[in-house]
């Protein structure tokens, strides 16, 4: 059973909050390998997490 892109993006998001199960990880990996759009989206969602961390960092160094 193949994942749709809609399901894949939901799993990518969930994967940021909990460990995915073995089957979920495997299906997602296959989908991301063959779907360029979802590969880009996954990278962009990962980038978003880094961007939030950077925002927090900037708060810490901002001038009073």
């Amino acid at each position: 059973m193949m994942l749709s892109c809609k399901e894949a993006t939901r799993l990518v998001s969930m994967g940021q909050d909990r460990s995915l199960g073995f089957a979920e990880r495997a299906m997602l990996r296959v989908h991301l390998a063959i779907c360029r759009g979802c590969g880009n989206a996954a990278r962009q969602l990962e980038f978003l997490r880094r961007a939030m961390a950077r925002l927090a960092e900037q708060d810490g160094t901002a001038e009073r």
Partner: protein
Amino acid sequence: MSADFRAQVESERPYLLRYALRQLRDPDAAEDAVQEALLAALAGGAGYSGQSKLRTWLTGILKHKIVDAIRRASREQPLAAGDEDDAGDFDALFDRRGHWQDPPQAWDDPDGALHQKQFLTALEACLAALPANTARAFLLREHLGMETGEICKDLGITPTHCWVLLYRARMALRLCLETNWFRK
């Protein structure tokens, strides 16, 4: 309690205010949370062992005050029944079979953008555009670093609803950054 300790704690106020504003968005609520945290810190000054940095310790106290504020706000304005389990708008990004209508293209040097002040301003604008409860869940997760189990409890929602909010937030922010920064 030394005047020195008091002064050091007080000097952290601007940082704590930025921290609270990031999460609570409302300046009055942020001021209140910071004030409560500083009072608690000064009252419980004996609890500070000096092992962690003062800022880390104070932020820990502030997090509790922020979560209290959010719990109160969520009780006063419970999420509408229609919000439950509904990824809503983002279903429109996919066709009937669940494929992208418009597959995302790669962004040009996103990590490079992290060094640009205007990018961070654009990100802040995208955060501000999120609906209140979506923003709350997302910031509790990404800013306070809370686990989703705790977030659901604090917001008074089911785990599924929690994941939907986080999904919505991430997809909205992705789209907002793409529209307002990477595709400009």
